């Protein structure tokens, strides 16, 4: 718990300008964060511009030119139906990035709320919610997401819902601990005695003081969310087969093993995006948690 409070306290001090300069200093010392930021920004720009910049429609078939190796016309080759892999990879970012972010936002919000309520309410509610959290943590989470997606029926929305539904337990645990810590502070007591309602105190007084570690964890988690979504999609529990989704493209590419461009480029797209977010998350943690910096 001490590490978490040190993260949160360092974030608060971080807001003063001298800390801002320190952040720039760390950014320079941590070139990987910068590289991560550049790659991630590039992908986000690509996601916005794909409709106007992709050379071909991602679903357009060209049976004459099927299974072409990368060449001047098809930068990344073409697939078994003559669709342009390059265009499909560009378009894929429009599925993967929002899906990954949605999982993190829904999942972490759920965890924050559950954890905060458990920590603040205490007693029986706390006990019940924490047992539920432990139960969800007992499953390897992607397996649980697979079962849920299979039950809901495979498509993008259900894959995102299923991943969000299994994503929250770690956030709930951390938030509960933090809320317990903050709850006993004097300013919380002050808010209570000033007549603020329980909900008001929880969401306006306590939560803002424990949200920072959850934000760091969420940043660290974006890469995992993206790779998990790709995995679900790879095994057929994501978007429909024709969709230009990266995991799905790799999965179809297995049947065309010798046509390496069919699986390599979408695979590298996933890897570069995940790596970028991991660089950012790691760097953020190193900067904000001085204990791990290891000077």
């Amino acid at each position, binding site marked *: 718990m001490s590490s978490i409070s040190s993260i949160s306290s360092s974030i608060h001090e971080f807001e003063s300008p001298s800390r801002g300069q320190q952040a720039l200093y760390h950014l320079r010392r941590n070139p990987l964060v910068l590289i991560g930021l550049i790659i991630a920004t590039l992908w986000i720009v690509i996601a916005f511009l794909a409709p106007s910049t992709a050379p071909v429609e991602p679903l357009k078939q060209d049976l004459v030119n099927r299974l072409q190796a990368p060449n001047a016309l098809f930068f990344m080759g073409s697939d078994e139906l003559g669709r342009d892999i390059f265009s499909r990879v560009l378009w894929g970012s429009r599925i993967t990035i929002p899906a990954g972010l949605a999982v993190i936002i829904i999942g972490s919000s759920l965890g924050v709320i559950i954890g905060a309520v458990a920590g603040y309410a205490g007693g029986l509610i706390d006990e019940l919610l924490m047992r539920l959290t432990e*139960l969800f943590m*007992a499953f*390897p989470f992607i397996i649980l997401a697979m079962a849920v997606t299979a039950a809901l029926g495979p498509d993008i929305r259900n894959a995102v819902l299923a991943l969000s539904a299994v994503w929250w337990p770690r956030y709930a645990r951390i938030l509960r601990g933090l809320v317990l810590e903050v709850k006993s502070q004097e300013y919380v007591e002050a808010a209570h005695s000033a007549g603020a309602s329980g909900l008001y105190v929880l969401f306006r007084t306590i939560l803002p003081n424990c949200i920072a570690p959850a934000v760091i964890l969420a940043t660290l988690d974006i890469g995992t969310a993206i*790779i998990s979504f790709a*995995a679900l999609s790879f*095994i057929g529990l994501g978007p429909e087969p024709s969709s230009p989704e990266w995991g799905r493209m*790799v999965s179809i590419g297995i049947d065309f093993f010798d046509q390496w461009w069919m699986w*390599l480029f979408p*695979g590298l797209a996933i890897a570069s995006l995940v*790596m970028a977010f991991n660089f950012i998350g790691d760097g953020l943690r190193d900067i904000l948690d001085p204990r791990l910096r290891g000077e």
Partner: protein
Amino acid sequence: MNFFRYFVRRLVFIIPLLLGITVVAFIIANAIPADPINANLPPNALNDEETIAAFRKKWGLDKPLHEQYLTYLGNLLRGDMGTSIKWRTPVAEDIAKRLPATIELATLGIMYGVVLGVGLGLVSAIWKNSWADYIARVIALIGVSFPVFLIALVFLTVFYAQLGIAAGPGRLHILMRAPPTVTGMYTIDALLNGDWKTFGNALSHLILPALTLALYISGIISRITRSSLLEVLNQDYMRTARAKGLRERYVIGFHGMRNSLIPVVTVIGLSYGNLLVGSILIESIFAYPGIGFYMFRASTSQDFPAIMGVSLLFAFIYVGVNFVVDILYFFLDPRIRVA
């Protein structure tokens, strides 16, 4: 606390957890699909009143929900996980048949993974900020960031298709016959049979998928090893150990490693979950006929009973492994014995 009491206490803790898992599985299987009959029976059986009636009766679908759960639990305890839609065979039998292959692969994978992960973590903690540290961290980063199916495909292309130094897909050469079944694990069965040629071939088929699994889980293991050892290296007792003239390798080996091992063991237990997920993705690429490949084919054809069966099994294995990890704490962390 003596070992027996610790063991029993952990064991008591695990039973509600296992029951809870069956409740979650039951809810997913019976409450989420709009119609469990649609989800669990093959499409051509949906017009057959008799089949539907038999299915309703077997799983107690006409009874209230809590009785349905008890029926479900009873069927489960008898080893009945329903019938696969795709293969029309009992899911439990399918799983039992394929489990040894996955255990064989996962065991080798976790062995490589722990050696690789702890090794890389040690190197980068001891020689912090050296070029060795950077190389080790890049390898760990690849393990964490690259989708495991991409690593598998690259390995297969490079080491099998291009260099030809590793065996390709499957468990054995096509022309070879499986050794007589004792454990179902080809390497062990071949050894029991004294058949070195089959043993060698089975092992060479395991190496690439096991290495892929290893790279996949070693990323997280090496990160934890590194940060945990770095923290220990700064402790006062490390300085004391050096000050009293111990050689560096004893300082690191006995004082450093032992104290940094606890988080590492925890993360090895937790990464068993990754290992199971990884087995689905890796086995499907290496056409390795284990549980993972079964799960892959079940989910691509939306074979719901098979998917639920494997999910349940994986959850149980995961809980079992983490139970073992809890037991290991007893030996690794003397503080538990005092508490």
